[in-house]
């Protein structure tokens, strides 16, 4: 009988991916800083991937990882043999390994990387003068235990932390009284008391189960490493009700290499206990809590219909419910907070690749990547950030010769700095390159017909820089260059604004450019103006709304087909919202409201049927396939339970 390995597949994919990402980061760090420590870490990552893949029976992955491991080991012995080409081969190998792991994740067999294996072998012979050894891979389906032990071997002994004064180790067992109503909380309290004395390990049941009250027979066992005395341990539990200490005895010192789940810098930086949670569960929690909030609001509404005398008890209940749900919401949001490093960690590698391709020399400095943001915002931000980086290196940083001619250091510098500012996170991406040409952007925008020459003349330089966010406007001097500044900047701006953030650009010719992203910490709670068209309701972000005016469409002057609404000292083009969203335009005449909104190239007036008022809503990202619909920036669910789309007016007008 074979053991079904598929249940380990998810773990294999996620752990192997982590190792390979770390390997890539190490390679870049190694090349940049010549950091010797990186080699040891690379060796461990390659070794771990090899062990896991071999246990899973993924031969091509195991073989390639083994070859990488050998080569890294060889370089460790002969650091002078490390050069740019060797790093390139290793990076290519880590990319290929990643692709193989992705194949596995998709359910297809990983492809053998013949050419790459050959290259690695050649380099290895080159460095060591011997051929690589064959890779042993599990032929039968084996238990994942094998991977775990391989992993443990990979960890060098010297990594075990030196112990200052050997604390003693105790085995404890306690029982929560059967009459206890909340055994989980009770056991958690004991756990906390003990954790205050020293290090708790081998907790059975595991902390998550324990907290949830899943404690068979009320029995909890654990090991405690502490310098406190036996008496001190007893005392700390003496005044805890509903708990009986059944066993407390000294045990042997811990074995030298206790199996630890994660190795590497993450574990060093963060000793706290963590569990991995699938992001879809987090999404589900957030949705569920959102629903709870709605349900609470509905109960409150119903309560208003009750006779006066019956209301207070209900209101008190609703008040408590509301407070609890609010707490829960905050907790869920906290859990969803993820450090920016999740997306900035891949930037050094990207910077290296782009710089190499373009013949640039660039130092990338990242600071503040430990600052946390909601995962949903990070997801949205990943591509724009990469795009901005590419922009800086492609178009901002000059070639070394050009820089020297301009009396600058030959190596360019791009910095990504992140900081908290009240309830926002400010991310600045700055280069010391040639800067952007405001006048050129104005000319390009006018040439494309995105802007009148008069309007362009009125723009300040700072406003003009944002013109690069109009689709198709670019100042790239190089005509053959297909990825000019303008390409994709519209997408960057849209993404940033889609999560409730803003984008600013500062630039000084010859000195450099700075992109400033101001982002909300959590999924935006946005203020919407709700408008009705026919039976449908749409939301317009208040930030984009300039005002609302009432007028009779029939009496407005027209320029060709477009009605013009007097506003301030000028006339604004009128767009019936019904038409923009693809509905029949109602023919009812008379006075109706118009919403004046900011669009890319100035203000426009949207004709709507009714204004329904302002509402603060939790923005939801558009899931597939809605994210493909032009002109939508998000969706929300109103108190009535009705989903309402939030419109991206400029895109709606352009589509």
């Amino acid at each position: 009988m074979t053991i079904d390995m598929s249940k380990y597949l998810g773990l294999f994919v996620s752990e192997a991916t982590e190792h390979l990402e770390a390997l890539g980061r190490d390679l870049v760090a190694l090349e940049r800083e010549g950091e010797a420590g990186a080699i040891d870490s690379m060796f461990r990552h390659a070794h771990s991937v090899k062990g896991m893949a071999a246990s899973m029976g993924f031969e091509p992955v195991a073989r390639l990882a083994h070859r990488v491991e050998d080569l890294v080991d060889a370089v460790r012995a002969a650091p002078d043999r490390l050069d740019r080409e060797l790093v390139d081969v290793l990076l290519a190998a880590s990319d290929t390994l990643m692709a193989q792991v992705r194949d596995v994740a998709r359910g297809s067999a990983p492809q053998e990387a013949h050419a790459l294996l050959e290259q690695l072998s050649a380099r290895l012979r080159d460095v060591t003068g011997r051929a690589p050894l064959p890779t042993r891979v599990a032929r039968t389906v084996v238990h994942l235990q094998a991977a775990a032990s391989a992993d443990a071997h990979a960890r060098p002994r010297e990594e075990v932390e030196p112990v200052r004064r050997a604390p003693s180790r105790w085995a404890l067992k306690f029982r929560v009284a059967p009459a206890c109503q909340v055994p989980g909380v009770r056991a958690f309290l004991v756990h906390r008391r003990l954790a205050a004395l020293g290090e708790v390990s081998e907790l059975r049941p595991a902390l998550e189960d324990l907290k949830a009250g899943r404690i068979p027979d009320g029995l909890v066992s654990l090991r405690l490493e502490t310098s406190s005395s036996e008496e001190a341990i007893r005392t700390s539990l003496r005044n805890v009700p509903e708990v009986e200490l059944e066993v407390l005895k000294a045990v042997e010192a811990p074995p030298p290499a206790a199996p630890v789940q994660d190795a590497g810098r993450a574990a060093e930086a963060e000793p706290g206990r963590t569990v991995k949670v699938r992001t879809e569960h987090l999404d589900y929690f957030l949705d569920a809590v959102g629903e709870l909030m709605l349900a609470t609001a509905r109960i409150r509404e119903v309560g208003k219909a009750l006779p006066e005398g019956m209301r207070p008890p209900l209101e008190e209940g609703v008040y408590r419910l509301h407070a609890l749900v609010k707490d829960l919401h905050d907790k869920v949001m906290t859990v969803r907070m993820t450090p920016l490093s999740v997306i900035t960690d891949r930037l050094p590698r990207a910077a290296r690749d782009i710089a190499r391709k373009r013949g640039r020399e660039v130092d990338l400095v990242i600071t503040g990547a430990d600052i946390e943001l909601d995962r949903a915002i990070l997801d949205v931000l990943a591509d724009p950030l990469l795009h901005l980086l590419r922009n800086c290196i492609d178009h901002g940083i000059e070639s070394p010769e050009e820089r020297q001619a301009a009396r600058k250091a030959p190596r360019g510098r791009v910095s990504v700095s992140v900081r908290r500012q009240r309830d926002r996170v400010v991310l600045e991406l700055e280069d010391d390159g040639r800067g952007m040409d405001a006048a050129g952007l104005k000319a390009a925008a006018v040439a494309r017909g995105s802007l009148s020459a008069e309007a362009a003349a009125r723009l300040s330089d700072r406003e003009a820089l944002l013109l690069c966010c109009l689709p198709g406007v670019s100042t790239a001097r190089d005509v053959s260059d297909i990825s000019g500044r303008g390409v994709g900047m519209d997408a960057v701006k849209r993404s940033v604004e889609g999560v409730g953030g803003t984008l600013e650009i500062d630039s000084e010719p010859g000195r450099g450019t700075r992109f400033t992203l101001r982002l909300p910490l959590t999924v935006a709670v946005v203020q919407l103006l709700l408008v009705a068209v026919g039976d449908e309701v749409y939301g317009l972000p208040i930030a984009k709304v300039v005002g609302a005016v009432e007028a009779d469409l029939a009496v407005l002057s027209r320029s060709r087909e477009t009605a013009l609404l007097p506003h301030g000292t000028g006339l604004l083009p009128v767009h019936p919202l019904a038409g923009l969203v693809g509905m029949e335009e109602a023919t009812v005449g008379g006075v109706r409201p118009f919403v004046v909104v900011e669009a890319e190239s100035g203000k426009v007036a949207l004709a709507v049927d009714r204004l329904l008022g302002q509402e603060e809503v939790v923005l939801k990202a558009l899931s597939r396939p809605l994210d493909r619909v032009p002109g939508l920036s998000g969706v929300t669910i109103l108190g009535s339970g009705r989903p309402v789309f939030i419109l991206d007016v400029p895109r709606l007008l352009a589509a």
Partner: protein
Amino acid sequence: MAKRVLVVDDAIFMRNMIKDIFASGGFDVVGEAANGLEAVEKYRELRPDLTTMDIVMPFKSGIEATREILKQDASAVVIMCSALGQESLVMEAIEAGAADFIVKPFRAEDVLAVVKKVLGEA
């Protein structure tokens, strides 16, 4: 000398009930507070031997108040008043330093047993 108790709850009904329970156990209820803000101030003023703390309250939650009280006085003994279904909040309060908890609906003998145990009298 009877131990001095501060009772914190936003419902008068609950406060009265808790006061009666303590009185029957020979404790001295020296003060009451109806929200977390008041609780922190009353604690500073009274320095009781024991504080019972509701979790969900207006202005400042019991967890916040507990955290602040312990910041003032690391030896403060705060017992959370919780209901079934509030387990995660109680655990949060314990992390904030609460000494123990009692679970609603309260039975006098259970409450007194917990309190005496926590104060090391049992």
